[in-house]
């Protein structure tokens, strides 16, 4: 009864917020002090339902009823000093609305040390930007993105991901975990037309592992017991320890028609590896997050003959740690990964006379060098070779009011997903998106999506902005 009442109250609040914000006749962010203080943000509800049942779940069960309030602020003290912050709070109401759902995750955190599954309020990002001549310093908790890829990550290696609440089906911006870092950018004025930028990043102590859904969660890895996350959490490196230091650098610039970059990043692996160790408990496993060094580069190039942007990136990870099927050792192997992609806005005037279709394709490949047969290929490991292709197509109709999109990702081992969506955005105040995540996979197959292959969902995302 209590839960039912809570659910009714939740729905009442939800619709009241919608009515209130939707009724506001004037959209405007809040600007003060001649634009030096800027406040904006959004409220969002994301409701998702299962499209097929599996185990104790039924088709039509709520996968999500997540309410998010995000506030962003920019404070410009002068031309050389500014402060930026994002505060994000959320409340996941699905357990309040449906008693039949597995309630085990309701009061848990993402594993091993992620955010609370039900509610949280977080100063998600905050950083100072200081400009001095050709230098820019960004100091604080932030996201830093390298690379040219979409949908999957390769050179985007600085921040870990929080896949606990919607797996990898959110914009990366929403699920990257911001870290406390110092980012220094050097852009010499004399080389401005070559867009030369040298960048240094240092994450002194803030290590966070990639977060996964706890046992019972919608996007939990099937068969992985909670005890694994509980133990990993105990064995995580102390978050505030200089031993966690991660450091890297990148140089990029435009040479002819090519934009090129090279980077190197020394960091901890965001995912744990383990060995059998009876001195550890309750599971006799020792978890660790070893340091690795990742060397790589990116390029992009526009070819006029084909009207296409070609882009790519490569990452060479030295001594990437892998689990052994015998759990007796960590197997360090160099790994090579690359992405080749293209973007081609294309007019199909018979389908859309006013706007192009944005067509973007990518091929990801990863290869473990000098492969050792003892390397485990279960638990979502990618195996010796890993090949994935993706295709994204979107366009806009009626002066950008209606935006249909489809994203298809397919792993050559037979897993993947299709993500169609359609957004209706009649103005600045609000937008609504209807979409679906349709996973496919082969039985007993792994990779990123195989274990989730029965978790298809349809969703409705409603966002009100201010």
């Amino acid at each position, binding site marked *: 009864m209590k839960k039912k009442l809570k659910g009714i109250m939740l729905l009442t609040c939800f619709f009241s917020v919608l009515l209130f914000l939707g009724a506001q006749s*004037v*959209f*405007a*962010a809040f600007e003060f002090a001649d634009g030096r203080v*800027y406040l*904006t943000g*959004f409220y969002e509800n994301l409701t998702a339902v299962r499209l097929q049942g599996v185990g104790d779940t039924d088709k039509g069960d709520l996968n999500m009823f997540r309410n998010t309030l995000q506030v962003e602020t920019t404070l*410009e003290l002068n*031309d050389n000093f*500014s402060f*930026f912050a*994002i505060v994000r709070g959320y409340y996941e109401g699905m357990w309040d609305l449906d008693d039949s759902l597995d309630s085990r995750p309701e009061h848990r955190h993402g594993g091993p040390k992620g955010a609370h599954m039900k509610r949280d309020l977080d100063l998600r*990002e905050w950083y100072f930007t200081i*400009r001095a001549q050709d230098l*820019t310093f960004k100091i604080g908790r932030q*996201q*830093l*993105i*390298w*690379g040219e890829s979409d949908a999957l990550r390769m050179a985007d290696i600085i921040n870990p991901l929080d896949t606990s609440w919607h797996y990898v089906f959110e*914009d*990366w*911006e929403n699920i990257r975990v911001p870290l406390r870092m110092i980012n220094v950018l050097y*852009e010499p*004025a*004399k080389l*401005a*037309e*070559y*867009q030369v*930028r040298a960048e240094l990043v240092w994450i002194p102590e803030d290590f966070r592992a990639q977060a996964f859904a706890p046992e019972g969660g919608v996007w939990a890895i099937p068969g992985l017991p909670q005890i694994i996350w509980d133990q990993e959490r105990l064995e995580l490196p102390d978050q505030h320890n200089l031993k966690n230091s991660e450091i890297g650098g990148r140089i990029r610039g*435009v040479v002819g028609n090519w*934009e090129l970059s090279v980077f190197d990043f020394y960091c901890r692996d965001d995912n744990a590896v383990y060995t059998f160790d009876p001195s550890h408990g309750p599971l006799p496993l020792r978890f660790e997050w070893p340091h690795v060094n990742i060397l790589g580069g990116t390029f*992009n*190039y*526009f070819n*006029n003959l084909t*009207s*296409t*942007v070609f*882009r790519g990136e490569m990452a060479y990870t030295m001594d990437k740690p892998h689990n052994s099927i015998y759990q007796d050792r960590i197997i360090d192997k160099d790994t090579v990964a690359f992405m080749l992609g293209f*973007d*081609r*806005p*294309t*007019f199909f*005037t018979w389908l859309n*006379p*006013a*706007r*192009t279709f944005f067509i973007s394709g990518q091929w990801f490949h990863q290869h473990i060098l000098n492969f050792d047969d003892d390397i485990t290929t279960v638990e979502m490991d990618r195996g010796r070779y890993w090949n994935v292709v993706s295709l994204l197509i979107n366009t*806009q109709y*009626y*002066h*950008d*009011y209606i935006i249909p999109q489809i994203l298809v990702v397919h792993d050559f081992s037979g897993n993947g997903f299709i993500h169609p969506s359609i957004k209706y955005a*009649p*103005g*600045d105040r609000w937008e609504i998106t209807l979409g679906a995540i349709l996973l496919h996979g082969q039985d007993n197959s792994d990779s990123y999506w195989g274990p989730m292959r029965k978790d298809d969902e349809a969703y409705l995302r409603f966002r009100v*902005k201010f």
Partner: protein
Amino acid sequence: MRIIKTTMAVLFLSFFFLLGNLLLGGNCIYADDEIGWHGPYEFKVPPDGFKQGINDQKVIKQFNCGNADEINGLVPDIQIEWLKDSQTWGPFFINETPYEKYEPTPGYAQATEKYKGTCKLRDDGLLLNWVAGLPFENPQNGWEVAWNFEKRCKWDDVDFPYVAPVVDKKGKVKHFLKGDWRRLYFVGRTEVDPKPAYPNDRGLELMDSYGYSDPYDMRGIIPRYYRYVDQFKPDDGWMYIPTMRRVRRLSTAQRMDTPGGGNVYTWDDFQGFAGKIMQYDWKLVGRKEALLPRMAKGTPEWVDGRHLANANQYYQRVNAYILECIPKDPNHVYSKSVFWVDPESWHFCYAMRYDRGDRLWRIFNTHISYMANGTYMPAGMSCLDVQTNYSSNPYVHGSFSNTGWTPNAFSWKQLRTLYPSR
């Protein structure tokens, strides 16, 4: 009987209502609606002010819905429709002011004199030998008029802050786009050293950026372009996208696409025409007397929630060039464009774009005003999709030019400072 009487009364009253409407011009609405600067942003004057007297010209005659037919042929036919049908388009007035000779900036005039007679056309229309100034004093064909437009007196560098209400079919403002357009020229420089060219080994003609500061979804998006002196070399483009937190390389092949945000104009439509001359064929249709907004007041005004930019502007009578251009690309979204060109400043004051079915599709009216330093600013641009009754009309305010920018003004560091975002 009572019913018959009532019915007759209603019919009688309706007849007089209709008659009155016809006599008074039916769809005519006078300026009960306020013509002015609307929206949530404060209007800003250019730092150095406007050209003296440009905002206070003497009106010889005002044309409105009551006397629109008097200027048939002096403006495009669609504007006669705007004058007459204020029910649909909002109150609209054409205020004729006395002709004033256009004077280019001193440096441009000197360059025109210095390089006079040196320019010529290649067989395919490519401009040869141009260094600075006006290429052709007395153009004889469409190509020469087109190059005069391309190389007209502008600025060596400029910043146009703008506000653009995007108005839907029902006259409702979907949102206000706010941002800046800034440009730096590397060639044809006449006012600010280095002249006539900014040394660079990339063969750059110009650098452009179009940063957005509002609304929320557009805030911090910064497209940035390089255009090269070589007309056959494609532009290079990049865009910083806040949601991705990174710079993305752009394909510049599809300039007939719109920039997004509900904009009506394509990348090539800006200020009448912003494409590459050599991607089109140019034909001089002829010359005719026309009323052009060639000395417009610098304080843009519009009727709140209506489509037409600068609803109460100044127009002058000149012998305009009528120019037609046809895309060389058979798959271009436009079948042709027609421009009405001021014969002294060479601005494209009116631009009409036709779809593949040769139907009028989009209109771009650029109201040319001038800052105190003699350089021009488009006080407002009417950008209308006449097939869907949808518009996005940038109004420029607080603009400045010839400040001596370097390429560093277009570095990501500088641009991200101007358009802060995540």
